[in-house]
């Protein structure tokens, strides 16, 4: 096998976290940094051609090539895992920028107590309230430690929004249930499409606290502290599953690549599919990949970073047999409760083709532990929201009010035409707790295009999720009524995990962080406990899902790790804790 010249750092995956780490290292040190990305290069101007629902939102051009690699899935160890043959419940991105190109841009911080979930829950409700099979644990890092890095991320991306808690002072119109933030959002909230305005007025009338979604689809032109300028959002409605044609949605290609392109010590190598990381004698030595020409090569490196998204990070560690003495690898697989809590059929047309992936409104009156759980049959919560992401006709034509039963023919057509621009969704994103029975390992039967075993997901909902979904669907239905809906379809209930229904691409766990090697794969600096020059970054490190969208937290953890590497590790390699 060909051996390439050694570099100081190799990063597997050219998405948000990989390129952020690359930028931190390349701009703050003289290290040579190579990013290996499986997919193709991309530029903002390529995205003009992407405003096509069929090729992008249905044929999913921006996603990983599922014909080459997928996962297998079963509900429990008793079930038989079969491949997810076409994309359904989540959409992994490929190509430079990764899923950070096709994301919606909803940019939450997690609430403070989610980082000490085990400790806080036990304190308040006692250990006996924890689900029988749970694997909940603390993160090994606190909200206070992450706060400055959240702020840096918001400034990097120019997040639009309204603070609800500025240094402890609650501000009406923002999310008053958020943790204290040190600064207001860098740009003002986005404009409010009609459906979101209906939700705002209805939820306010019920005494709730709605606020504009924190948005990476920036509301106005913005120049970030690195000097990168981006346009303001035009509300064209082509965000989620698309790349932004004007660069208003913060994406790695318009936020980080412009800076990296100027660095002589940075190299981006698209088309490189990494198959193994080599760890010998407690040190990572480099990675083996199939390069763009199809040749298998070894890239030696002083420090190895895995930043290839939750599932790929976990699978690479497994395929590479990286030492895992306490058998923590693969555990704490979580997704997210993501349901259309109430579908609303309005009297008036909504003009829903206008919008943006993060233009909308949410309320967190039932988030986390902001309400008392003593008398409800579940722990934790989430946010009820509506996002006006740009209604797509192929995906939405034929969503029918409950009174209409026809599925084709004249009666169906007439009813569907009538409902088409009068259909809105109130959604719910809820926390997914970790359970021992939800985990990842390598599939014994199915293989990828290279002949390597696929990752196997063992995943199902528990009563905590089902009960929470039911409770929230009732609350959402109450808001739908207050919106003056002429008909409402409440969510029918969460049954078994369904790999065919899109939920979100927010999958966490597998290489979780923690305070001790006995219970985690990486420390709070995302440094592998078994090899101090191996870092595993991204939401693979999250011990459980705390309801909100994960990107901001993954980025904040990356900034924190980068500081420790630049300020301490480079000078004196070793454990950072």
């Amino acid at each position, binding site marked *: 096998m060909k051996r390439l010249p050694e570099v100081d750092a190799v990063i597997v995956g050219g998405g948000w976290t990989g390129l952020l780490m690359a930028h931190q290292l390349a701009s703050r040190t003289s290290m040579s940094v190579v990013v290996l990305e499986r997919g193709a290069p991309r530029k903002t101007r390529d995205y003009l051609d992407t405003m096509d629902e069929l090729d992008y939102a249905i*044929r999913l051009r921006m996603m990983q090539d599922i014909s080459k690699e997928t996962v297998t*899935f079963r509900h429990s160890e008793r079930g*038989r895992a079969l491949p997810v043959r076409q994309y359904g419940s989540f959409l992994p991105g490929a190509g430079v920028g990764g899923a950070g190109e096709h994301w919606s841009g909803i940019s939450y911080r997690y609430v403070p107590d989610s980082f000490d979930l085990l400790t806080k829950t036990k304190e308040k409700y006692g250990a006996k309230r924890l689900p029988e099979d749970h694997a909940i644990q603390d993160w090994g890092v606190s909200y206070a430690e992450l706060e400055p890095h959240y702020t840096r991320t918001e400034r990097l991306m120019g997040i639009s929004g309204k603070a609800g808690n500025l240094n402890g002072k609650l501000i009406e119109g923002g999310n008053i249930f958020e943790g204290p933030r040190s600064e207001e959002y860098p740009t003002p909230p986005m404009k409010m499409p009609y459906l979101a305005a209906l939700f705002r007025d209805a939820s306010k009338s019920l005494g709730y606290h709605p606020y504009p979604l924190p948005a990476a689809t920036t509301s106005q032109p913005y120049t970030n502290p690195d000097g990168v300028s981006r346009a303001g959002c035009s509300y064209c409605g082509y965000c989620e599953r698309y790349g932004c044609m004007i660069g208003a949605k913060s994406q790695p290609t318009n936020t980080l690549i412009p800076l990296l392109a100027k660095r002589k010590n940075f190299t981006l190598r698209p088309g490189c599919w990494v198959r193994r990381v080599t760890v010998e004698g407690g040190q990572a030595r480099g990675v083996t990949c199939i390069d763009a020409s199809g040749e298998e090569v070894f890239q030696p490196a002083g420090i190895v970073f895995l930043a290839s998204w939750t599932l790929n990070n976990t699978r690479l560690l497994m395929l590479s047999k990286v030492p895992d003495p306490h058998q923590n690898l693969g555990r704490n697989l979580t997704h997210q409760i993501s349901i259309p809590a109430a579908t609303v059929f309005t009297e008036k047309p909504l003009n829903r083709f206008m919008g943006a992936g993060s233009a909308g409104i949410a309320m967190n009156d039932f988030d986390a532990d902001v309400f008392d759980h003593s008398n409800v049959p579940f722990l934790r919560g989430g946010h009820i929201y509506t996002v006006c992401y740009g209604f797509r*006709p192929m995906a939405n034509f034929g969503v029918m009010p409950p009174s209409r039963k026809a599925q084709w023919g004249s009666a169906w057509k007439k009813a569907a035409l009538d409902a088409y621009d009068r259909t809105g969704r109130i959604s719910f994103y809820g926390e997914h707790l970790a359970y021992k029975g939800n985990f990842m390992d390598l599939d014994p039967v199915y293989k990828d295009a290279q002949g390597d075993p696929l990752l196997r997901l063992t995943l199902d909902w528990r009563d905590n999720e089902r009960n929470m979904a039911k409770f929230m669907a009732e609350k959402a239905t109450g808001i739908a009524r207050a919106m003056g809906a002429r008909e409402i379809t409440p969510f029918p209930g969460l049954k078994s995990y369904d*790999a065919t229904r899109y939920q979100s691409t927010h999958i966490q766990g597998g290489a979780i962080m923690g305070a001790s090697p006995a219970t985690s794969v990486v420390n709070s600096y995302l440094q592998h406990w078994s090899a101090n020059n191996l870092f595993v970054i991204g939401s693979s490190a999250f011990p459980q899902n705390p309801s909100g969208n994960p990107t901001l937290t993954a980025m904040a953890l990356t900034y924190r790790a980068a500081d420790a590497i630049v300020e301490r590790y480079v000078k004196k390699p070793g454990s950072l804790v």
Partner: protein
Amino acid sequence: MKRRHFLTLSAASVGGALVYTLDRRPYVVSAQDKPVRVPLRFFTETEALDVAAAVARIFPSDESGPGANEAGVVVYVDRQLAGPYGRDRYRYTQGPFESGIPEQGYQGKATPREIYREGVKKIAGLSKLAPVEQDAALKQIETTSFFTLMRTHTIEGMFCDPMHGGNIGMIGWQLIGFPGPRMTYFEDVDSHYGNPFRPKPQSLRQVVGRPVKPSEDEA
């Protein structure tokens, strides 16, 4: 050599449509033209007529507006089946193939092409029946995967960008008030609350000012 099949469309019903010649050069039909013979990429002429009849019952032309016939849905389906989608380029197709639970999704070996080739046999002669009889025949197969797929493709063919062969003259978009791709709604997104805002539809080709290569023309 394989016999080339054509589907004959009345120019009056598809005036202004973008079709493709045998060598796949774009060609715009005007309402004054003679009937156009669209070269078929996958279906035989008989199959195309039966599928056209089926999709026209799923999404009929009636008092609520034009339907699958005017939008050219069958042309859309033909191109999709001939292209990478039809041969399952977008699916993990390694075996073994086992039957699973619904939450694991479609586990079959049959490609969309194969599902159609088999399915269309069950509606052979449909194009020659009266609408009531066509509905009765479709009722017999409405729970099959062939029908489900055809229903999905009907919606896609009604509302796709015209470059994919359906939504001829953006007739589907006009029907639902969807303007297609557009550069900006900055001034409009928070105006028009509760009132219909219906800008004139534009195709992707019109917005970007040049042809865009659709996935069905890729390898």
